[in-house]
């Protein structure tokens, strides 16, 4: 593998110190003089008709400047796939977080008090709280178009014939819960009119250009009148992929001419923000006597709640990955995206893959057990390798590290000690076990068009400013891009400055999601760098008269390979400026894609990331408490740009995976969320985060920037099934539902007669 000066080294992130000492300004840290506070009145009911909205009392409340309703929104439906979401509700409310009115007041107190004075008359409607009842179609409808937002069926081969010839068939129904992002910083932002008269929104988000487009469309504003800036955000995980406060802020500033601020309380954020889709997955999986997987029949129902959001794409990712990283010749997938009044589901790290991976990885484990095969061995007999054809008859041309990951897992001391660990009982009620799971997910947005632009400016003192619209949501992309840029432009890392995510100053680098911003921006940067180097060499030729083919760049200089003459980047900048050649270069990269297979939007991807995980658990059979004692993660994410950031990303994702697996239980009863704060919705504490070992499986992705691919999501995906498989190993009980909360597991153990201490 090629060695680089910067790439591959665990260099402290450029933003680390500022974040550690509290200098970084996050969206909630912005204030201005003469600023108004925005407060949203949200629905009282999960499902109700709005009969009337009377804002007169609220308007009279001291300190109130304006109250807005749907009447103030020129185009009151938006959405990335289907425009089904109102900015402010008009005909109906469809979940308890639905916004009904917006108050702008001089203080947050006045705004909140006034919101409570708005008199909304509702006619409660039957609550659609169950996907199965929702699809029957004879009950209440969340939207006029019906409760099935999208449905599709994908088949290859003949599953029925394969079932007839199978040695073993396993069939189970799995349920997965609604995970809440629980980012450190809740949704926040500030809006104002900038020096050029543009309505400027400084807010949380994952895509400045897309947010801008939605603001312009809903408020009927011309593109040039709106500017969106996304500073470093206090966590997103997909939860800031959809619009939250942005349109509200723009509306207040548009109508009042004054700056406006919003910053949601934890409770409001938890109730209103998007969540991970609850899933109901039935899988029938067959194998021959050697453990070769023959067929997989899957039915997936995703509960998208009140609106589609990114649901159609989430459904695609669930479909695409429900067969795991395996070659299965016969598949049959029925999939539905269903509206309910439970919440509003959209993007969440893993984007449909954690749900289905829990199912398929439990299935494969069950088959191994029936056949008496080692769980890693059966996986190795079925995994895809580079050049293979996948389940959709698509050739897998990108790098594939899953076999390597599983081979390394098989030799890991934790796996080798598996049976000894199981036999060790330091208390009669403690059971220990070790489980494994594999995972796959495409990075990039598959067969959907996706391109991005990165700009480079050479400063007169010979430094580079990289301009891009990637958003720094904690993942470290900005620092990683700087590291790549220093190698591509052959200079010291300190001479790279990043300017990110301001629609008035940085080009559109597309949304920061799908684990692919490094891939996308990195490739665009490569093109921009090539362009920039050409300019530097042109300057060298002008200065020295030597031909361009003699020159190359090296550590801040253009150097002649024949004469050894050199020109510093700052001298080159001066020449480019004088000759009017310009000191800027742009690179555009369009992610390669195929045409989608019929019945899908974006399947297949050309590029996949993979991982294996081993979990060691301790189960208290008298309480149902699962303690994850150790997690080993073996992600294949291509070339590692910064080992420190890479490990951080994987460990953070895995901790979130532990939350998904055993803790995070969003209790929704008849459309009402009962766990609205962090005392009842339990995310892992430091004591719940186990020892973790991250072993990168470094493959080289030829199309990636310096061989890199994506890493943001893969760490979470194998955790829940690895934990579930470890629980099975420990107790003999297979859990079919996550989160595996203590009460839930205790009941399962009791039903199975497995809760007697001995």
């Amino acid at each position, binding site marked *: 593998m090629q060695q680089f000066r910067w790439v591959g080294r665990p260099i402290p992130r450029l933003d680390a110190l500022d974040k550690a000492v509290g200098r970084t300004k996050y969206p909630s840290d912005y204030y201005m003089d003469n600023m108004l506070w925005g407060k949203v009145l949200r629905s009282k009911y999960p499902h109700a008709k709005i009969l009337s909205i009377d804002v007169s009392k609220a308007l009279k409340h001291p300190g109130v400047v304006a109250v807005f309703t749907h009447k103030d929104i020129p185009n009151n439906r938006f959405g990335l796939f289907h425009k089904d979401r109102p900015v402010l509700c008009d005909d109906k409310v469809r979940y308890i977080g639905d916004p009904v009115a917006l108050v702008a007041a001089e203080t947050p*107190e006045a705004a*909140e008090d006034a919101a409570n004075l708005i008199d909304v008359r509702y006619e409660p409607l039957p609550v659609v709280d169950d996907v199965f009842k929702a699809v029957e179609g004879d009950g209440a409808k969340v939207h006029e178009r019906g409760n099935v937002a999208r449905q599709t069926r994908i088949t290859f081969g003949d599953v029925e014939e394969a079932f007839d010839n199978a040695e073993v068939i396993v069939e189970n129904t799995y349920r997965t819960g609604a995970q809440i992002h629980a980012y450190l910083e809740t949704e926040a932002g500030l809006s104002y009119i900038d020096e050029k008269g543009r309505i400027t929104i400084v807010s949380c988000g994952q895509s400045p250009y897309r947010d801008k487009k939605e603001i312009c469309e809903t408020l009927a504003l011309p593109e040039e009148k709106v500017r969106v800036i996304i500073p470093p955000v206090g966590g997103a995980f997909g939860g800031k992929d959809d619009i939250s406060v942005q349109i509200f802020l723009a509306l207040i500033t548009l109508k009042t001419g004054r700056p406006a601020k919003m910053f949601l*309380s934890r*409770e409001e954020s938890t109730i209103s923000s998007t969540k991970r889709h609850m899933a109901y997955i039935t899988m029938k999986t067959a194998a021959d006597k050697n453990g070769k997987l023959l067929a997989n029949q899957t039915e997936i129902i995703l509960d998208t709640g009140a609106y589609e959001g990114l649901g159609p794409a989430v459904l695609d990712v669930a479909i695409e990955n429900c067969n795991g990283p395996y070659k299965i010749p016969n598949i049959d997938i029925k999939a539905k995206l269903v509206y309910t009044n439970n919440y509003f589901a959209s993007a969440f790290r893993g984007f449909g893959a954690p749900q289905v991976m829990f199912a398929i990885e439990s299935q494969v484990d069950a088959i191994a057990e029936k056949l008496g095969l080692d769980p890693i061995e059966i996986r190795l007999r079925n995994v895809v390798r580079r050049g293979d054809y996948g389940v959709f008859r698509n050739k897998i041309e990108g790098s594939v590290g899953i076999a390597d990951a599983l081979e390394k897992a098989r030799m890991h001391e934790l796996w080798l000690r598996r049976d000894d660990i199981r036999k060790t009982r330091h*208390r*009669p*009620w403690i059971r220990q076990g070790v489980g494994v799971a594999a995972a796959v997910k495409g990075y990039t947005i598959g067969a959907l068009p996706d391109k991005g632009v990165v700009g480079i400016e050479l400063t007169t003192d010979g430094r580079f400013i990289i301009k891009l619209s990637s958003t720094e949501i904690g993942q470290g992309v900005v620092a990683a891009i700087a590291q790549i840029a220093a190698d591509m432009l052959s200079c010291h890392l300190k001479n790279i400055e990043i300017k990110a995510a301001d629609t008035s100053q940085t080009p559109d680098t597309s949304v920061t999601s799908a684990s692919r911003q490094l891939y996308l921006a990195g490739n665009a940067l490569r093109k921009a760098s090539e362009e920039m180097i050409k300019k530097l060499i042109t300057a060298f030729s002008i200065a020295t008269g030597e031909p361009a083919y003699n020159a190359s760049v090296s550590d801040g200089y253009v150097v002649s390979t024949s004469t050894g003459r050199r020109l510093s980047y700052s001298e080159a900048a001066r020449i480019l400026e004088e000759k009017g050649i310009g000191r800027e270069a742009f690179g555009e990269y369009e992610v390669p894609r195929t045409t989608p297979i019929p019945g899908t939007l974006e399947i297949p991807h050309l590029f996949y990331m993979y991982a294996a995980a081993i979990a060691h658990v301790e189960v208290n059979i*008298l*309480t149902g*408490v699962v*303690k994850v004692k150790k997690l080993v993660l073996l992600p294949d994410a291509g070339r590692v740009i910064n080992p420190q950031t890479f490990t951080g990303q994987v460990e953070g994702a895995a901790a979130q995976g532990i939350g998904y697996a055993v*803790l995070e239980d969003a*209790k929704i009863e008849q459309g009402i969320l*009962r*766990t609205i704060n962090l*005392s*009842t919705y*339990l995310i*892992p*504490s*430091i*004591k*719940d985060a186990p020892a973790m070992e991250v072993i990168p499986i470094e493959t080289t992705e030829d199309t990636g920037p310096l061989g890199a691919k994506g890493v943001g999501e893969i760490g979470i995906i194998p955790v829940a099934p690895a934990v579930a498989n470890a629980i099975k190993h420990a107790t003999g009980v297979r859990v079919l539902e996550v989160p595996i*909360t*203590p*009460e839930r597991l*205790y009941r399962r153990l009791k039903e199975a007669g497995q809760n007697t*201490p001995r």
Partner: protein
Amino acid sequence: MNRLHDIEVYSPKTLEEALEILRREGDRVKVIAGGTDLIIQMKDGIMPRKNLLNIYSIDELRYIRMGNDSIRIGALTSFTDIASSALIRNYARILADAANTIGSIQIMNKASIGGNLVNASPAADSIPPLYVLDAVLVLRSVEGVREVPIQSFYRGYKKLDIRSDELLTEVRVRRMAEDEDGIFLKHGLRLGDAISVVNAALLVKWDGDDRFKDVKIALGAVAPTVVRARSCEEALTGKELNDSTIWDAASKVVNDISPIDDVRGTAEYRREMSVNLLYIGLWEIINKRNQAGW
């Protein structure tokens, strides 16, 4: 959410001043120590908005001292200090263990034992150990001093034997003797920083015959107040101890508790957890005595 920026806060520097303010203001003020429960309750409107008597800077209420046959703990003593006190670790270990699980490091640093007692959550982790350690609460007012045994301090859900002019200033616990052993048990829904679904403290006195001469068991989060498990205590005292007798005794706890369903668990689950937790506790105590096991 209620705002608290406009309420009055009295911040006396001495106990004497504090008692004088309490005499004068009585019910019109609410005492605040660490504020880890009170502020949230006032913001959420669970507790009425009142002016505050902030006793947090009265350092004379922060101490852990050996008394004649008790340990005296100043009401403002933080759980961090209790958990790390050698005196408490040596003579009232179950209280130190409870203090250690009460919440995050930040909560442990800020929250006080007096606050935990007066907040009177049925799930408070410090209370069951204090029940079995026969704690006495010292209540002071301008009028004088009252000493109230912990069990009579709690008269029902958040109903306390304390007058509006009185301040809880000290908690006294008995020292555990050589022939005594005990354990604190907590069942929460995550490993760190969780509110208890059930918690329990066990204190036993061994006789010379490998039986319990005396047993005290208290449980939290399973009734409107912390409760003693008298049925279990009775079933264990002086009896032969083996796996089946401790199961039977633990099972009797359902007679002593009255749990409810809430967001953390069903009543049924709490009943079963009470039994199982007591079994675990008894097993640990007996196993320690008899390392060979049985």
